[in-house]
């Protein structure tokens, strides 16, 4: 079976569902958009290592699996207990999706102010699908085949709309849990977050699944910030190492809006988290942080594109990677400063720590600047553990393993500290320190 054919076969199963009408609403535009997207994939195929943006992350492994598009209906093995283990309950509104489809029994939609609409994509598709036209109706192909594929399959996900000046205090949790019954699944969650003028919210996305299951999460999240809106976005990717994770977070920002993304990448066999930010209004600010911790045979790819179109915008990126075993990390950060984007202040930083003789990192911070009134910097560093520090700790009585764990943890701690949500930070601290404190290294020695 050739790689190209596989997902198209998977698509074939769903195509029958793409009837032009659904629940009495005319979905002609949607059916057309899905078909266009599918055709685009057929014509352009999947990205390969010859594409600059996919140079370091081979997709062969994913393309070799005969995935089937995940259908609706709760999985049989998902329990509240499992879900709570996968994603610590932050107490506020929580939407849980199993295999990309909403699970009301695990979800909670309380504690929201009146100006906040928090519902599902499926619900909006059923009641007022035209609201989604600006999102699902766009021509695919701006990015790549997987984003287009999400266009083809997307049926559910979160839909959040904050009206003018609405402030949601509690974090809105989105949990994506996947499980299969032996057949490899492709799930295609699609979330839309619209923050009107002056609104504020914190969104926490968590991705997890049943250990040992083979599936691929192919997710697209779109965030639109109007003037003065503020969104803080967390993402914890902790899928099992038998799963694949391909994500696109697309952000558009208007004047004086602020967007922050903090990403923690722990799981998956091959994971790619792509963020695209359009700074379209003056004085908008974006800050993107992330850690990635590939071990075993994991591949963690962070691809970022920040597009400074408007003047006087600020962007910051800080990504740190710890690479162990045969782990492979990729940082591909691209800052574009367009002609006219004067007063741009942009920086990006990527730091990596290699723990094993077979670990690998490819880092590519990129600046592309077409005007002169800018202040842009970038830096990338790859290094190993500081032997002096290690020795120091050992002379103070720490066993080698603990000393190593401590130093690795210190390296990523700066990032964990940036997480302002206390319970989330505590849970991530536990996850990260478990990873470096003991298990991984003891197994290796």
């Amino acid at each position, binding site marked *: 079976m050739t790689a190209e054919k596989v997902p198209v076969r998977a698509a074939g199963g769903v195509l029958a569902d793409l009837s032009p009408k659904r629940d009495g609403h005319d979905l002609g535009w949607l059916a057309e958009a899905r078909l266009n997207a599918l055709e685009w994939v057929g014509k352009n195929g999947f990205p390969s290592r010859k594409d600059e943006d996919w140079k370091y992350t081979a997709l062969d492994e994913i393309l070799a699996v005969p995935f089937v598009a995940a259908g609706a209906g709760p999985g049989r093995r998902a329990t509240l207990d499992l879900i709570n283990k996968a994603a610590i309950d932050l107490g506020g509104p929580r939407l849980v999706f199993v295999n990309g489809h909403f699970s009301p029994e695990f979800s909670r939609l309380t504690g929201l102010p009146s100006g906040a609409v928090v519902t599902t994509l499926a619900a909006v598709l059923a009641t007022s699908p035209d609201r989604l036209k600006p999102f699902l109706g766009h021509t695919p192909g701006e990015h790549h085949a997987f984003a287009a594929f999400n266009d083809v399959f997307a049926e559910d996900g979160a839909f959040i709309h904050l009206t003018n000046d609405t402030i949601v205090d509690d974090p809105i949790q989105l949990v994506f849990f996947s499980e299969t019954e032996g057949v490899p699944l492709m799930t295609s969650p699609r979330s839309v977050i619209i923050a009107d003028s002056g609104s504020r919210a914190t969104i926490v996305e968590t991705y997890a699944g049943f250990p040992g299951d083979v599936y691929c999460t192919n997710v697209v999240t779109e965030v639109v910030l109007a003037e003065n809106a503020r969104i803080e976005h967390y993402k914890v990717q902790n899928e099992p190492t038998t799963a694949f994770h391909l994500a696109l977070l697309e952000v558009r920002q208007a004047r004086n809006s602020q967007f922050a993304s903090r990403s923690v990448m722990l799981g998956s066999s091959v994971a790619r988290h792509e963020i695209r930010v359009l700074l379209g209004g003056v004085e908008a600010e974006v800050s993107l942080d992330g850690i990635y911790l590939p071990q075993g045979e994991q591949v963690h790819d962070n691809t970022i594109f920040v597009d400074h179109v408007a003047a006087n915008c600020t962007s910051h990126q800080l990504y740190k990677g710890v690479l162990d075993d045969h782990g492979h990390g990729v940082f591909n950060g691209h800052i574009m400063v367009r002609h006219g984007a004067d007063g741009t202040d942009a920086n990006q930083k990527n730091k990596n720590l290699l723990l094993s003789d077979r670990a690998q990192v490819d880092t590519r911070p990129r*600046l592309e600047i077409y005007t002169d009134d800018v202040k842009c910097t970038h830096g990338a560093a*790859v290094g190993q553990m500081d032997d002096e520090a290690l020795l120091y700790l050992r002379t103070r009585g720490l066993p080698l393993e603990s000393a190593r764990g401590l130093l690795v943890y210190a390296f990523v701690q700066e990032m964990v500290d940036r997480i302002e949500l206390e319970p989330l930070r505590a849970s991530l601290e536990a996850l990260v320190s478990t990873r470096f404190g003991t298990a991984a290294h003891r197994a290796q020695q």
Partner: protein
Amino acid sequence: MSAPTTTVGISDEVRELADQEYQYGFSTDLETEVAPKGLSEDIIRLISAKKNEPEWLLDWRLKAYRHWITLTPPTWQHVSYGPVDYQDIIYYADPRPKKQVTSMDEVDPELRAMFDKLGISLGEQERLSGVAVDAIVDSVSVATTFKDKLAEVGVIFCSFSEAVQEHPDLVRKYLGSVVPYNDNFFACLNSAVFTDGSFCYIPKGVHCPMELSTYFRINAADTGQFERTLIIAEEGAYVSYLEGCTAPVRDKNQLHAAVVELVALEDAQIKYSTVQNWYPGDADGNGGVYNFVTKRGMASGKNAKISWTQVETGSAITWKYPGVILKGDNSVGEFYSVALTARRQQADTGSKMVHIGKNTKSTIISKAISAGHGQNTYRGLVDIRHSAVGARNFTQCDSLLIGKDSGAHTLPYIDVKNQTGQVEHEASTSKIGEEQLLYCRQRGIPEEEAVSMIVNGFCREVFKMLPMEFAVEAQKLLTVSLEGSVG
């Protein structure tokens, strides 16, 4: 068709070939020593025959040509230019002076003004402008003196063609050993059609007694379009080589695709400096040289050191990544670069450092200045292979922007496959400092002079790597190139 026999001049076969070509619509007059336009196996045979080359070299050229015709020009570089018609190029022409003028009065006044600003002596001005004067005779005698001095210590320094005749074993051993014929589109083209260049061999333990610049500059007026340079430093040898000159060189050939190969054996050191000031095209971007060069060094032995320093102010398009393959343990690679793009110039340049040996070290310092509509891209690769235990790299790329329509782009590629590797990359891009400009002007220094002073300061780290006299010239060059960019 077999390779032509070794007689110089016009063999029957070449005559026959020329006649054949003529049938296809070309007009060839062998007496004028110019081949018909276009590229074919026959043209390559003609070049090889004209140069009286051994069969292995012809075979090598043909192998390159046959590979080249399967390639398409690269498109990934951050530059734009119209398609080059490779069949519209004359691949062989006698390198003797063509057009001569009888006095400096006939030389383009703009060119003369630039010579004056750069402080180039009248004699040199005349030579560069192709004025037929007795000075040329003097140059030859000076050159001969240098050559004798070099021969005393066993240094071979001659044209590539001469080396093929006089030292065929050395050429055969090292040609293509660093930049293989199939390396990339332009290197491949060069391998097929190169006409001449320089060859330099420093024997074991010899410290070359002079900068190989003086001699070179006297003879460098006609470097040709497809230049090939090969420098070999044997164990413990040292050489400092200087290419190019600050004088603006106008050339009717738009495409220049040179290849430079450096080989440094154990404990050897090669320092290669370039000042490039080809015609950049006019203010609207018309004309100007396409400078597509492949330069690479092989630090093959333990403790070998290869250092590239470049000051690139000319050419419409500069496309080059001088690199070092750090194969020997403890070997060192360095790259120091100043690239200035003004008017509508474009540069896509940087360095490739490939770490293979243990404890190898590399340093990359790049200073880019973009003015007017200039676009300047740093593109670099730091590749730490799995075998490169204890490898280190430090990279610093700074860009200075002068004017709203200028652009600066920094695209490093860093691949690390060894946990003991340490890589540090830092880059910054900003507008020329307004506070610095005001400070200088407050002290009475006019704006244009202040800009030039600040830019030269920005580049100082690189200039100090150049041989002294050249550093001074390079600074002047930068000043002249920036003129009219301010305001």
